[in-house]
């Protein structure tokens, strides 16, 4: 029952908020925050009770839903999904708290959409039935669409529609691929089921079918990640979304793409995954470098952070497709790291925006003199994002590069350049915002962190340092699952090859 509780507590909270009177804004905010906190508390036992020594799914729940079609309500977590579930439930209360004043109208609707969004996101990570997964995957589009479209910036409608159409086009093709897989499995085994563990056992014939199915799944996930060249929706969506939307978008929604690769593409289509690894490598590398270069020249802080996501997620994709334990564990921990660091960067950008109502770097300068605490935290978060040893970003990037180096040295070397460029764009931006003299009169009145903002940022910083200093707490969760996944990919690919040889 734990996973059902974690998934649906936010939805119940949303229902409660709906019933509250609109004019009691404090009550609405309190209920929403309370629900998100409750969801986090409910998710903590998942970590406590998780057995990291096994790759099996844990906290499994399974009930028949549409038995005639082989659809079941099947939930479970393993070392791959657990960190992401915890990341989601951890960030949601902070995000809601950050929106306390940032969201100026229709807070009630905002609370409802955010809580429904949380249910959708957790559902995506815990669903072990393709049908159920797809429902969460699609259903969570609409709350995000509303968050961008209603509470976003000037070009919000354009960004929101672009976000939905891009994602929808990709995921609909995935739907067809799911159906093809379902019927192929059914025809071969006479068992018609959407159950992921059952489908993973099924050895698809190699060749064209597997390639096309892989591509259909990969397109859906690549758009979500987003991998170069499917990233063009991201800067629009990130920049136009309100702070809370940007945080969730960067921290959790993008991870759905990389998680999808891990959970579905790799085990379901191992042969195609191995075959396409060089292409993914290439695109990831382009993403890393291109994202970094484009970030460097952005005049808008938020856009800079948005493009840096393209670069960081390129690292994650690089790690996943090394098919080495280090690469995969690094990829998973980097997903969490990016969620924390970029999430925190967006939070800080939001705080700056609330103070000055601009996000242009040129409008700032010398902030350290007026808001030292804010700038200090900003510095830590920036350093974590650029991968300073001792902070979380370094751990993930190091493991990924370690994995990549075993597979392709040139790629590893070029990717390392991406870290250098990250230092360039982040530190240059930081320097222009925080150092020097206060050049503009308006900036003299910029206030330092309020207690509420301290509460929002401190938990994130704790984990940034924790992962940086003692990553084993978190990497240990994933190791067994990752080893099992890699083994599975290779045995299944071998089985496919044997099938072809016969």
């Amino acid at each position, binding site marked *: 029952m734990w996973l059902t509780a974690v998934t649906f507590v936010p939805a119940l909270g949303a229902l409660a908020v709906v019933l509250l009177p609109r004019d009691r804004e404090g009550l609405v905010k309190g209920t929403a925050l309370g629900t998100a906190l409750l969801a986090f508390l409910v998710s903590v036992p998942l970590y406590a009770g998780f057995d990291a020594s096994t790759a099996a799914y844990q906290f499994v729940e399974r009930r028949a839903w549409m038995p005639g079609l082989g659809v079941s309500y099947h939930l479970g977590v393993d070392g791959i999904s657990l960190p992401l579930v915890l990341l989601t439930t951890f960030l949601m209360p902070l995000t809601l708290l950050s929106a306390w004043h940032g969201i100026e109208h229709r807070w009630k609707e905002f609370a409802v959409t955010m809580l429904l969004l949380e249910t959708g996101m957790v559902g995506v990570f815990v669903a072990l039935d393709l049908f159920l997964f797809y429902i969460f995957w*699609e*259903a969570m589009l609409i709350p995000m669409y509303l968050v961008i479209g209603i509470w976003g910036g000037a070009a919000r409608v354009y960004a929101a529609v672009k976000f939905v159409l891009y994602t929808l*086009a990709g995921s609909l093709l995935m739907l067809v691929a799911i159906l093809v897989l379902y019927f192929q499995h059914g025809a071969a085994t006479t068992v018609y089921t959407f159950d992921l563990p059952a489908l993973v056992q099924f050895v698809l014939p190699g060749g064209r079918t597997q390639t096309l199915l892989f591509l259909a799944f990969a397109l859906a996930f690549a758009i979500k990640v987003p991998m170069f060249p499917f990233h063009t929706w991201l800067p629009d969506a990130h920049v136009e979304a309100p702070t809370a939307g940007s945080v969730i978008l960067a921290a959790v929604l993008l991870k759905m793409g990389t998680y999808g690769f891990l959970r579905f593409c790799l085990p379901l289509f191992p042969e195609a995954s191995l075959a396409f690894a060089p292409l993914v490598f290439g695109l990831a590398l382009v993403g890393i470098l291109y994202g970094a270069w484009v970030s460097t020249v952005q005049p808008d802080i938020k856009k800079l952070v948005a493009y840096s996501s393209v670069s960081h997620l390129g690292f994650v994709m690089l790690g996943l497709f090394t098919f080495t334990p280090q690469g995969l564990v690094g990829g998973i921990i980097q997903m969490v790291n990016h969620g924390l660091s970029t999430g925190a960067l967006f939070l800080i950008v939001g705080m700056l925006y609330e103070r000055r109502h601009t996000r242009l770097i040129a409008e700032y300068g010398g902030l350290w003199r007026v808001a030292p605490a804010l700038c200090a935290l900003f510095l830590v978060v920036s350093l974590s994002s650029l991968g300073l040893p001792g902070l979380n970003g370094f751990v993930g990037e190091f493991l990924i590069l370690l994995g990549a180096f075993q597979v392709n040295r040139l790629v590893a070397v070029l990717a390392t350049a991406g870290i250098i460029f990250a230092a360039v764009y982040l530190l240059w931006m930081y320097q222009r915002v925080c150092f020097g003299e206060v050049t503009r009169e308006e900036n003299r009145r910029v206030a330092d962190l309020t207690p509420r903002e301290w509460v929002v940022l401190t938990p994130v910083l704790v984990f940034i340092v924790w992962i940086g200093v003692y990553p084993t707490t978190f990497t240990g969760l994933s190791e067994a699952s990752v080893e099992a996944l890699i083994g599975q990919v290779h045995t299944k690919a071998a089985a496919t090859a044997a099938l072809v040889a016969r």
Partner: protein
Amino acid sequence: MTPAPLTFPEVDLRVIAPALALTVTGLVLMLADLLPPRHRKDHLGLLGLAGVVVALLLSLTMWGTDVQGFRSMVALDGYALFFNLVIGYATGLVLLSSLDYVGRQGAESGEFYVLVLFAAVGMVLMAQATDLIIVFLGLEIMSISLYVLAGFFRTRLESGEAAMKYFLLGAFASGFLLYGIALIFGVTGSTNLARVGAAVAGGAAGDPMLLIGLGLLLVGFGFKISSVPFHMWASDVYQGAPTAVTALIATGSKAAAFAALGRVLLEAVRVADLDWTGLLWVLSVLSMTLGNVVALAQQNLKRMLAYSSIAHGGYVLVGLVAGGPLGNASVLFYLLAYSFTTAGAFGALVLLERSGREAVELGDLGGLAARHPLLALALSILLLSLIGIPPTAGFVGKLYLFGSAVQAGHIWLAVIGVLNSAIAAYYYLRLIVFMYMREAADGPPTVAVPSVAGSLALVVSVWGVVQLGVLPAPLLSLAQAAVSPLLR
């Protein structure tokens, strides 16, 4: 010489019980229309609604029967009963939402409800027909009622235009259909679907006359389901007709035409020599694509829904192309889901007014969510179902349709279908954009008319859409049970 004993054909009224219930109610309504009160007629609507409920209950209690009557011209089987449900719900929702709509629009009269009921009689007959003559009879009863209904706001130019267009093109369609029936009769010597099927299997399949006949039949049905390239009437008629009538044309009449088309395909031309899938494939792709692309450019909501309904007809054709148990069952399920959704969406439009006229332009929706959050929410859920976002009926329906296509090996058809859904998302979402993300346009605001019946209709459709989306299994197995006897 003793005269031959006079034998009456056996008449089993049970077979036509649902249609009979609707007919009797219609006749009672005509009588009651003569009685006072003279200026208020919504009690007639309630009476008609009671008749529809009776017909629905009859259909439900008779579930599981499989009888034919009137010399095998009419059948009451699972297939017909399922369509009775679809038609019953659609008619009921339309009656509910028109209860005070007709009066509000200054056209209060008892005939409106009578005609709606008679149109429903025709639809039910089409679903039950196992003889081409009954198909034609049902089609005419339905169509003539709808022609009049389309022009019911007789003081409005566009309403008259809609009626005229619908009538002229509909008359053509009837002509095609009748000519097709005549040719089929000429070749096979029968209009009974089972006997036509036997004759086709017995070697008549190669006869060009039969092919032409079946082709003409398809043209006739193509008009009624507004499939491209027989869709020309749809946009103007949908726009001009009273909104409640448009809802009926978009749901009930389309479902009935699909019912008859499906039965003809299943019973008469289900043989290897006559492969219609290629033709239906083309019609399906054309309808989906053209419907969705043209809908992108519409500013009038009724016109947009007209093109969207053309596209949805194309989706349903996907199921007919796929065929088999899953394909045909998904056609039934989708039509139910679609009818709930579309009747609800039009029901929401019925409630909207702006400075005394109907609010049917896209701009009229501006800022609606701020003023009428519940109505906007309901319409949004219905629109999400039309896009096919889970957990709504539209998603499950599309999943079954495209699933059946994949199963039958028509993977490209499924791919074209889902890409079309992505195109469609754009124009449906635009409505949500206007309701939630734009401010109201200048001028008087759009208001929702406080109407208990209209709100009830909306609640019922939203409930149906969500119910079918979350727990579709019972109705899907019902649909499968309904088609399986026909696939023997």
